């Protein structure tokens, strides 16, 4: 490897650490040697390991370090030395020694025991114990003891590396209070590789800039600098930005398809009267779809107002006897009170009904679409939700026919990425013919049902528009398409709003 090249890639932290490396050194020693923060050394070592400059060996070891008192003794001297020092000129009572040497009761008694054993003191009993230094004591005070040498070791120290006499001191210290402690720790040993050794012998230029600064640009000093090379192939921490919710991304796309095809957007309320949601669509008043089962009815406000009397009269007559639509009607009485009941719209087809009611002859031909939420009273599980999207479309045109309906559906689904569309006979109270819409799923290799369609019955259009006109209509499911696009299994995930998921999700790419 080109050492010069490698040296140019070194980060300032690596540059600082490198000269401190030895053939093998423990991490703790390295930190001390570098005089840097532990985390800085750690990062530098990791980078160098990635570059093949060092190898890091990790091992669990019994590690000895100084405890609270040990640290104190290292700084202020061992209690027995402090004890002796206090009496070196003058015999004192225990209390006086404690005060002078800054020792507590426990330290006093341990020190006294130790010093007595070494004959370093003489103890006289008067009213209280009076301690004076002996000849041996004076010698002892001058000498550096094995204990003191021990405290001066570079902690933490591996237990296995202790010499025999050190081990004896350690065992002794363990008996005393909070001088040393022993834990099992993961120890790192850092060794230079062959490359590392060569590199550390190299004189590394310090005319290397790590960051281009505004100052360098102002002064032009960048011209004399060499820029540290980055490892551009490494992974960097992830970020995420703000974005539209994925369902809304899909909705935008779908809206654009209909706009491209010359459709106008319809919008409207989610709370509707049964009149608009059902009666205007010729759904008989005793139809099972009006059951409490599937439809969310409102408790407050329970009922709304009926629209313009003109519409009400026509709808009532159409239900009861067909009015002038050429139909026989449902042959049962139509109840205005039932039509006033408020509900959450069961389909966006309610918007189509309202749109047709607002059209005049001179507005034709006209095409409309809506993408909106509809509601079905379901218990939630992985397959069912009480809110779902519907893509609605109508073509109001005196010349429209069933083949055109198929044409629009095909065009839409082609743009959605489903080139094969088929229709099957279906049934809706407001369309005739009615057709279920299937698309061919290229991965699953099967037909997937995605909605319903048909031509509105004259019993729907004439009361609303005034004269009979063919209206092609469809209501397509969207949630399923969205699920497929993001490979979502559980439909509840569409509205789960898990921020991690939203941050990481790919966007709608069609």
């Amino acid at each position, binding site marked *: 490897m080109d050492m010069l090249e490698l040296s140019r890639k070194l980060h300032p932290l690596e540059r600082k650490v490198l000269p401190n490396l030895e053939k093998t050194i423990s991490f703790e020693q390295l930190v001390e040697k570098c005089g840097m923060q532990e985390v800085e050394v750690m990062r530098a070592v990791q980078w160098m390991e990635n570059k093949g400059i060092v190898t890091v060996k990790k091992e669990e070891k019994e590690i000895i370090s100084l405890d609270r008192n040990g640290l104190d003794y290292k700084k202020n001297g061992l209690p027995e030395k402090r004890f002796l020092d206090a009496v070196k000129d003058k015999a004192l009572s225990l209390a006086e020694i404690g005060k002078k040497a800054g020792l507590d009761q426990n330290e006093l008694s341990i020190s006294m025991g130790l010093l007595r054993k070494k004959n370093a003191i003489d103890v006289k009993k008067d009213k209280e114990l009076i301690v004076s230094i002996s000849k041996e004591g004076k010698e002892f005070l001058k000498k550096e003891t094995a204990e003191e040498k021990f405290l001066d070791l570079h902690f933490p120290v591996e237990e296995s590396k202790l010499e025999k006499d050190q081990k004896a001191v350690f065992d002794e210290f363990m008996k005393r209070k909070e001088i040393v402690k022993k834990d099992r720790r993961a120890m790192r040993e850092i060794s230079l590789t062959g490359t590392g050794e060569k590199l550390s012998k190299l004189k590394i230029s310090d005319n290397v800039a790590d960051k281009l600064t505004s100052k360098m640009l102002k002064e032009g000093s960048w011209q004399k600098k060499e820029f540290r090379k980055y490892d551009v192939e490494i992974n960097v921490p992830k970020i995420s*930005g*703000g974005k*539209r919710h994925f*369902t809304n991304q899909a909705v*935008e796309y779908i*809206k654009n398809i209909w*706009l*491209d*095809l*010359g459709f*106008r*957007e*319809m*919008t409207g*309320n*989610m*709370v*509707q*009267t049964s009149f608009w949601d059902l009666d205007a669509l010729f759904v008989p008043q005793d*139809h*099972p779809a009006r059951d409490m089962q599937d439809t*969310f009815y*409102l408790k*407050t*406000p329970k*009922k*709304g*107002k009926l629209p313009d009397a003109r519409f009400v009269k026509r709808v009532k007559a159409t239900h009861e006897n067909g009015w002038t*639509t050429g139909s026989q009607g449902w042959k*049962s009485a139509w109840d205005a009170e039932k039509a006033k009941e408020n509900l959450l719209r069961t389909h966006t087809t309610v918007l189509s009904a309202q749109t047709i009611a607002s059209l005049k002859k001179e507005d034709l*031909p006209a095409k409309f679409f809506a993408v909106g939420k509809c509601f079905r*009273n*379901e*218990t939630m599980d992985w397959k069912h939700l009480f*809110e779902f999207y519907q893509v609605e479309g109508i*073509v109001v045109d005196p010349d*429209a026919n*069933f*083949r*055109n309906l*198929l*044409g629009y*559906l095909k065009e839409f689904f082609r743009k959605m990425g489903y080139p094969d*569309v*088929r229709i*099957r*006979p279906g*049934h809706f*109270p407001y369309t*005739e*013919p009615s057709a279920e819409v299937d698309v061919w799923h290229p991965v699953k290799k099967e037909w997937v049902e995605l909605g319903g369609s048909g*031509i509105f*019955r*004259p019993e729907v259009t004439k009361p609303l528009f005034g004269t009979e006109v063919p209206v092609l209509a469809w209501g397509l499911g969207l949630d399923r398409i969205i699920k497929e696009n993001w490979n979502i299994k559980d439909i509840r995930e569409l509205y*789960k*709003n*898990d*921020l*991690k998921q*939203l941050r990481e999700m790919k966007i709608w790419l069609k």
Partner: protein
Amino acid sequence: MPTITINRKVLDKIIGKKLPDKKLKDRISMLGTDLESVGEDDIIVEIFPNRPDMLSEQGFGRALSSFIGEKTGLRKYTVKKSGEKVIVSKEMKSVRPYTVCALIKNLKLDDEKVREIIQIQEKLHITFCRRRKKAAIGIYPLENIKLPIYFCARKPEDIVFRPLEWKKEINAKQILEQHPTGIEYKHLVKGMKKYAVFHGSDNEILSFTPVINSHHTGKITDRTKEAFLEVSGSDLHTANYVLNIMAASLADMGADIYSMEVVYPDKTLVTPDLSARKMKFSVSYINKWLGLALDEKKLKSLLEKMGYGYEKGHALIPCYRPDVIHPVDLAEDIAIAYGYENFRPELSTKGTVAKEDEFEKFRKKVSSLLAGLNLLELNSYHISGKDIQFRLMELKAEDYVELENSKSEEYNIMRHSMLANLMQVLKENTHNEYPQNIFESGYVFRTGDSETGVIEENKVAVVLCDRDADYTKIRQVLDYLIASLGLECAVKEASHPSFIEGRCGKVVCGKTEIGVIGEVSPKVISNFSVEMPAAAFEISLSALFGMIEKV
């Protein structure tokens, strides 16, 4: 939608040939029914509610055999005159106004056919008869009945007989309390002083309709050769069609149908009438509707494939088809016979001008602006609960829109604010990384003056949730948004229970108050089990949109 189970052997016999699985599958779905499953012995088919005539093996087989071209054209059903009477008493008008009846003779039954007859009754009861509310069917072996038959009303205590599958005689009141069928249909006679019964001239009760038949006189078996068939209910139109569907199926099984005279106080009806109904239509109308160019001959053959007859500009509609009420219904059947798969798609070439809804466009722009500020857009439910919308927000529950019948208790009102929904999202995301800076625009609901009594207003809420989220930061977002829309707004100090007192204000644009902004109160944050400061605003996009337009 109802499903029926069809024995394949029976079906093969009706059709007159055995269809391979693949063809059977394809044809069934192209006939306008949904094939649920194909088994060795049985197939299960889902029938659309407009075709009650297909709720039996006979009816289904009849339609399928026409459709595949085996036995096309109108089936003619002969009804012989029996001259027997059913006498309807005057008081029935207020109890159960109508009955229509027939006698069935020469029945050749076996276990399979008995099962089928019971299945048709059940399926018709559930669907077309609206769970016996509109009409109910009874079929009785004739051998135990003394003619004529009476249809009359009696007090519950006076209706004493042994109901189907019951050990002893009990009265109608006890039936409603004890018998499983009685308990199931109790609601249909609720509040009535007298109940409807059929009885023979010997006073032997045949049934307490629409609840249950007599075990003695109202149970057909494979030995039954002759039977009395009645349909009673509140709606004569429905009752007639139910009788026709039953009679046609029995006739298809090989039985002979005899009419009866149903004698009302003011009129006498002779039922059933199994003749075809005529409907006038024009060939061009059908062609225009479907986008085809069929000639009369082709049209006739397509109608025949669907079991109709054709006669000089008229379709002859079989007696069992209540759903054909307008020529467009013929158009659909013609389309089915033509084959939906044979229609060639065609886009209209007429130009129309596209237009996106102005408000939706505006809303999209607002969302893009906010997303550009590194906020994540959410999409939450419109249906929520009082707890989330009010209690946890420290708000008084008022002017909210409540659902009548939600299946889940925690979702029973319409959302009242977007902010509450966003707080709920924070609650569900405490395990995820902060900052959690989020927004959502959507409709909120309150009671007020409108067609439905509900006001739907679009609002956008933004919440910044992070260790250093504060008033300044949220105010910056608000100011940026409003300024980007070319508007100006001010914040006036105000109190709001969801925000910290003294760190909250109302947002005012011109003279209109459009929302609220502030640091969310620690009480509210804790209510949602979040342990991170939050600052938020919620403003009305509907109101802002009005101001934009004026600019």
